[in-house]
């Protein structure tokens, strides 16, 4: 495998899948983390423990679970999603959503609790209060986004199990590295590894730049 159209396609697919999975994790994790941080309801600390446990979920276990669900004979088999990019996205969302949720809750809990009262005391509605708290915690929230993206772009076990590493369809950078290593093509595997590292660095560099620009202002 050389740096050609196939590598380009794998790289784009990896980025698409991880970006979509991170976006969905943020979409679910930000409100859920906010609810855990600010809400008072029965079972809150149990849910918090679940989320914290979820932050360390082994990707292969997630892969196994999603594969069982999406398997042809499984409960969601009729959806015919196994060995598709959608299956990888589902698995990656399950991996990164607890990371985003847990770090969002931690970021909001680190704020002065009186800030909520102050916002209400200036006439903020509930939505405006939450939006303002997100603004106040924007630096750690960006860190949560980076951690969420990091957990999925580098993930291999679940992608392999539910995506199947099918050429031109579900092969992503991490599964391609595993394949090339298995075939003894270490030079190609190293090249793909460097490409993955470069992409990860560039994305995190961009997010860090945004984060630190916010910190300096």
């Amino acid at each position, binding site marked *: 495998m050389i740096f050609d159209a196939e590598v380009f396609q794998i790289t784009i697919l990896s980025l698409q899948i991880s970006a979509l999975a991170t976006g969905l994790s943020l979409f679910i994790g930000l409100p859920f983390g906010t609810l855990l941080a600010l809400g008072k309801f029965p079972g809150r600390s149990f849910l918090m423990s679940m989320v914290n446990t979820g932050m360390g979920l082994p990707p292969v276990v997630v892969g196994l679970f999603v594969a069982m669900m999406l398997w042809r004979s499984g409960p969601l088999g009729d959806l015919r999603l196994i060995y598709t990019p959608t299956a990888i996205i589902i698995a990656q969302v399950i991996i990164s959503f607890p990371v985003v949720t847990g770090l969002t809750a931690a970021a909001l809990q680190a704020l*002065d609790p*009186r*800030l909520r*009262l*102050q916002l*209400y*005391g*200036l*006439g*903020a*509605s*509930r939505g*405006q209060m939450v939006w*303002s708290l997100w*603004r*106040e915690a924007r630096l750690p929230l960006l860190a949560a986004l980076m951690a969420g993206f990091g957990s999925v772009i580098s993930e291999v076990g679940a992608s392999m199990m539910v995506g199947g590493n099918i050429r031109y369809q579900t092969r992503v950078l991490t599964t391609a590295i595993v394949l090339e290593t298995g075939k003894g093509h270490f030079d190609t595997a190293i090249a793909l590894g460097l490409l993955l590292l470069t992409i990860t660095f560039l994305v995190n560099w961009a997010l860090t730049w945004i984060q630190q620009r916010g910190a300096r*202002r």
Partner: protein
Amino acid sequence: MKHLIEIRDLLVKRGQRPALQLDYLTIDKGEVLAIVGPNGAGKSTLLLTLARLLRPEHGEILFNGQQTRSESDTDYRRRIALVMQDPLLFDTSVFDNLASGLHFRGAAKDEIYQRVPFWLERLGVAHLSKRRAGQLSGGEAQRVSLARALVLEPQLLLLDEPFSALDPPTRAGLLDDLGVLLSETETTTVFVTHDLPEAAQVAERMAVISGNRLRQVGKPEDLFASPIDQEVAQFLNHKTFVNIRTII
């Protein structure tokens, strides 16, 4: 209608314990009412209840003679503004801090650009307009916090010991300015403090709260001259209090 606020038969609990019991209290339009009392007496509880940040067990608060129970919390709170002990400024510029409450109310850009510079000027912090909130001194931050509340031109201003963390000279300067501003704008104000000279300087009436109950309300000079009982006298540091009933 003389009263802006009328409180009747109020009971507020924090946890299972009563934090404030108040049979009747009125606050006149344009008046500055100081709430004084020892720590834990229920002063801040009253303020937070007036801001609808605590919900009473029972009782009613009339605003301009109208029941407020059916009004949403947000609609109610948009008639008031709260300043807390710490400035709690937002991590943005001084200008944006002042604009925040106006944004919450959906104010037009023109109105924001008219009102914010005016109130920055009134509080003597116009030169800090572009400064980040985190770069301000304690006194500057509290001035900005007051401006952030006053820019809303609230019907009721709630101040919760806003000067307690400041050094004496800064505090004196800010107190002088606040007194002038409140009298010029005729803003109805409830001012919680445990500093009696501070209360006497700014307020037209003082309410003494002790043991989670309202003990006495009146002009500062009347309270100092004739405290209602031993406890109020002790709090007011009234060394010559004589309990007439005991003598009789």
